[in-house]
Structure formats: structure tokens, C-alpha cells
């Protein structure tokens, strides 16, 4: 096979592996920010969720997302990724039912694997926001819905040849498709579940410190690392100039967000809170995900700085709104997923690394692109939030969403799994 296919396949698979590795990062961040008594449960959720994604996306999700169909949903080759396909043939040469992704010249299963790890990321985002009170089985059921229906449908709109892509909306690596989708579904879950016992006792907000900030820090490093697969990999081709550029915009946004989040938390809280620094890093990464290939390194710096401020304010805002998100998933993925999507409309430079996005507002492109981006933000938000509320409601009705008060007090590790995370350690749980 000619070199290009080989090189592109290597690039796609290696970056996909890095994105897969982000599952470890999410597991570590989310359990680290939660209490020791719920650690086994969070680890279990974050571990099994990728298994669920793998099966859900294989059996139906892929078909819904990439199958040729209407502007709203894929219809052909729906099940078991089993439609006709002659990858790595590209463009004209491609004969098959997954034409929306025939722009990349890698073998079929390489495409599938790369798309799968993105689907898994969207699903795992939900886990953190609903943790410390949700039933294990209820989360598993929702994850199946997420990976077989919710994510693939939005994915079809933006990356599967659906109406948003036709419209001219751009989301390079998934600020909307992955992070906002995960964020909206998480928000619906938080609303349906209500806060953890003691979080908002008699009117005032109580701090419920995470049990292991080492774990949370390592997890954030892993996510940062994995993002070098997430963004540069989304070229799905080893285009030297593009991947180099994206690696730097991605890293610069993260760095800037770390600094601004740390500074802002220092100013607002009085001390540089590690949790905020970590969330800041993730906020910058989420925000640069959509525009990473379309904006200059300078713009990525600016985007990062803003993202870092946004996330700190958002964390405090959600507390004020009495929305209990133990790990800051909403502030990171929802708020900055939206912000990042909008940034494309503001900072994009036409053909910067090849893609003809047209210019964003600040580069003389006017409101055209920005309008498309906002359309996506609103429509995706509406769709995902509504369908998720419905899904959570149905689950609540059939098997229930929340563990008993007694179980929540003792911890979900014993209640849901009969395990203890740190057997032998003296853990003092007074809430």
C-alpha cells in the first residue's frame, strides 16, 4: 500500500490510543475530586463506560453517526458497522455507505476505532457530574442511550454529513460534538438527581473536599497528554504542518488557561486552589478543541486566558444555582465547549491549515460563521438537554436514579459494590 495510507493509519491509530488513554484521566480526576467512600463506584463507572461505548457504538452508534441518510440521522449500514465500504479508498473512489467520512484515507476499522474513542469521551464526561449519588445500573443504562443515540445523532449533524455540516458550521475536534454533548447530558442528570446530601444544607453552600488531589492532578496530566491525540489526531491524516500547528495551539491554550484560572482563583478565593488550576487546564483544552486548527497560536493564547476565567466563575455560579457538580464537569465541558464553538466564529482564519472555514468575526469574516456556530450551540443544546431529561426521567421511573439516603451516607462503594477503595486506611468520614 502506498506510504500515505500507512502513515495516515499510524497517525490515526496512535492518536486514537492517546484519546483512549484519556479514560484513565477522567477516572482519576473524577474519583480524586470525590470522597473516598465513593471511589470504587466512580472507578467502576468510568471503567465500564468505555466498555459500554465500545459495544453501543459498534452495534448501532457508528451507523447512526456515519451511515448515509438524512440530514438528521444516518440510515444505511446501521448495525454492527456492517455496511458496504471500500476504505481506504477516498473521495470519488470511495464506494460504500459511510461516505461522510470517506475524506480520510485509512482502512475502515481504523476510522471506526478513532471515532469510537471520541464517543467514549462524550459518555465518560457525564460520569463525574452525577457521581456520589447515582445508581450504578442507572448510569450504565444512560451510557448505552448516550452512545447508541444521543452522541451519534449530534455527531451525524456535524461530522456525519448532517445539516450542521451542510450549513457550514465547524467543530474541528469536538467542543460541541463531544464536550457540549457530554455537558448537556450531564446537566440534565444533575437536575434530575438533585444535590448530594449536605451540599446545600439550610441554604448555605458546603465544601465537600475531594479525597485525593494527587490522583486528580495525575488525571489532569493524562488528559492534557491525551489531548495531543484528541486535537492533532482529528486531522485523521498525518498532515505535518497541520498537526504541528494544532499541537502548539492546543498546548498554548491549556497553559494560558492554567495561569488565568490560578490567578483568578487567587484573587477571588484568596489562595491558588489546586482544583481550580486543574479545571483551568481542562477548560483551556476544551475551548481550543473546536478552533485548534483554524486559529493562530496567538489567538489560542487569548482563548485559553478567557477559558481559565470562565471555568472559575462557572464553578462558583453552578454552586450558587444549587446545581451540584462534584467535579466541575459542567464548568469545563459544557461552558467551555460552548465557548470554544463560538471561538471558531470569532477567531477562525480561512484556510489556515487547509480547511475553508471562512474568516471569523475578528478577522473580517463578519457574523456569517459566528451565526452558524451559534446555531449549532443552540440546536445541539436543545436537542441533547431535552432528550437527556427524557432519558433520565424514564430510567428514574423504571429502575430509579438515586441510591438510598443510608447508602449515600455510608458510601456507594459498600452499597453498590460491596467493596472498599482503601481497605486498611483510617478514613474519617464526617459527612
Amino acid at each position, binding site marked *: 500500500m502506498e506510504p500515505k495510507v500507512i502513515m495516515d493509519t499510524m497517525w490515526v491509530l496512535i492518536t486514537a490510543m492517546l484519546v483512549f488513554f484519556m479514560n484513565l484521566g477522567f477516572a482519576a480526576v473524577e474519583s480524586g475530586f470525590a470522597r473516598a467512600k465513593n471511589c470504587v463506584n466512580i472507578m467502576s463507572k468510568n471503567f465500564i463506560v468505555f466498555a459500554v461505548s465500545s459495544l453501543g457504538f459498534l452495534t448501532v452508534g457508528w451507523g447512526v453517526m456515519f451511515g448515509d441518510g438524512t440530514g438528521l440521522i444516518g440510515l444505511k449500514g446501521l448495525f454492527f458497522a456492517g455496511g458496504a465500504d471500500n476504505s481506504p479508498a477516498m473521495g470519488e473512489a470511495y464506494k460504500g455507505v459511510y461516505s461522510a467520512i470517506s475524506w480520510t484515507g485509512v482502512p475502515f476499522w481504523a476510522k471506526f476505532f478513532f471515532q469510537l474513542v471520541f464517543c467514549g469521551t462524550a459518555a465518560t464526561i457525564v460520569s463525574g457530574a452525577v457521581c456520589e449519588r447515582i445508581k450504578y445500573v442507572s448510569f450504565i443504562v444512560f451510557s448505552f442511550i448516550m452512545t447508541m443515540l444521543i452522541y451519534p445523532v449530534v455527531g451525524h449533524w456535524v461530522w456525519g454529513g448532517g445539516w450542521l455540516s451542510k450549513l457550514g458550521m465547524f467543530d474541528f475536534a469536538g467542543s460541541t460534538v463531544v464536550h457540549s454533548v457530554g455537558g448537556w447530558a450531564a446537566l440534565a442528570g444533575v437536575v434530575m438527581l438533585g444535590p448530594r446530601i449536605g451540599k446545600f444544607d439550610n441554604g448555605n453552600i458546603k465544601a465537600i473536599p475531594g479525597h485525593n488531589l494527587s490522583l486528580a492532578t495525575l488525571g489532569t496530566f493524562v488528559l492534557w497528554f491525551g489531548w495531543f491525540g484528541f486535537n492533532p489526531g482529528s486531522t485523521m491524516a498525518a498532515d505535518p504542518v497541520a498537526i504541528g500547528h494544532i499541537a502548539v495551539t492546543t498546548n498554548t491554550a491549556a497553559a494560558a488557561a492554567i495561569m488565568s484560572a490560578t490567578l483568578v482563583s487567587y484573587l477571588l478565593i484568596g489562595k491558588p486552589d489546586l482544583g481550580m488550576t486543574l479545571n483551568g487546564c481542562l477548560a483551556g483544552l476544551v475551548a481550543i478543541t473546536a478552533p485548534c486548527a483554524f486559529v493562530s497560536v496567538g489567538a489560542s493564547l487569548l482563548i485559553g486566558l478567557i477559558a481559565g476565567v470562565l471555568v472559575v466563575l462557572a464553578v462558583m455560579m453552578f454552586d450558587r444555582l444549587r446545581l451540584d457538580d462534584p467535579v466541575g464537569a459542567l464548568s469545563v465541558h459544557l461552558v467551555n465547549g460552548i465557548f470554544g464553538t463560538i471561538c471558531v466564529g470569532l477567531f477562525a482564519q480561512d484556510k489556515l491549515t487547509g480547511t475553508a472555514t471562512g474568516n471569523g468575526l475578528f478577522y473580517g469574516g463578519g457574523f456569517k460563521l459566528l451565526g452558524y456556530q451559534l446555531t449549532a450551540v443552540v440546536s445541539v443544546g436543545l436537542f441533547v438537554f431535552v432528550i437527556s431529561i427524557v432519558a433520565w426521567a424514564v430510567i428514574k421511573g423504571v429502575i430509579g436514579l438515586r441510591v438510598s439516603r443510608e447508602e449515600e451516607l*455510608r458510601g456507594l462503594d459498600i452499597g453498590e459494590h*460491596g*467493596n472498599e477503595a482503601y481497605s486498611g486506611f483510617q478514613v474519617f*468520614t*464526617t459527612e
Partner: protein
Amino acid sequence: MKLIIAYIQPYKLNDVKQSLYKAEVFKMSVTNSLGCGQQKGYHESYRGVGMEVNLLKKVRLEIAVNEDFVERTIKAIIEGAKTGQIGDGKIFVLDLPECIRIRTEERGGQAIG
């Protein structure tokens, strides 16, 4: 003087502290402990092997007070810790012949507070 030892449910610690403050009892020492009493334990398992856990997490309070504070202290603890359910805990009262404040080497009643 008396030394009051109380075992309470961990999640009741804050309530008990509040009611003790209300009763103007400001000094205390807190230790985590495992308790076995009427309250039934729970079942754990690990890699397929089950185990009965009957030592439950409790918080142990130690409060030294002068005689005239004994009853209000007890009342305050009960007020904060009582739910009426098994597992609420126990209070033990011991005689305390002597008490010394290390900082000042004061002894007896005035060293307690």
C-alpha cells in the same frame, strides 16, 4: 471534674459541635473509632469472598468538664446526636481527679476551660 466520653455517628459530629457550642462547651478532643453495638453491620465482599463487617465507623469525643457543666454537656451531646435510631451511640462519664494545662501548668478546675 468529669471526663465525658461519647461515641456518636460520624455524620452527626457537626450537629454535636453546634449544640456543644450553644451550651458553651468549647473544648473537646475527637478521635475516629470503630464500634460494635446493637446496630447491625453490613456485608462486604472482595473478589468473590464475602465478609461480615460489624465494626462500624464512629466518632469518639472526649470532653473534660467541671461538675457544674456535666449535665449540660450530656444534654448537648444528646441534642446533637440523637436520631432515635439504633447506632446513635453512648456517653460514658468518668471521674477526673486532676487536670493540668501544659502551657501554664495551672491545675484543676481553671485548667479545664
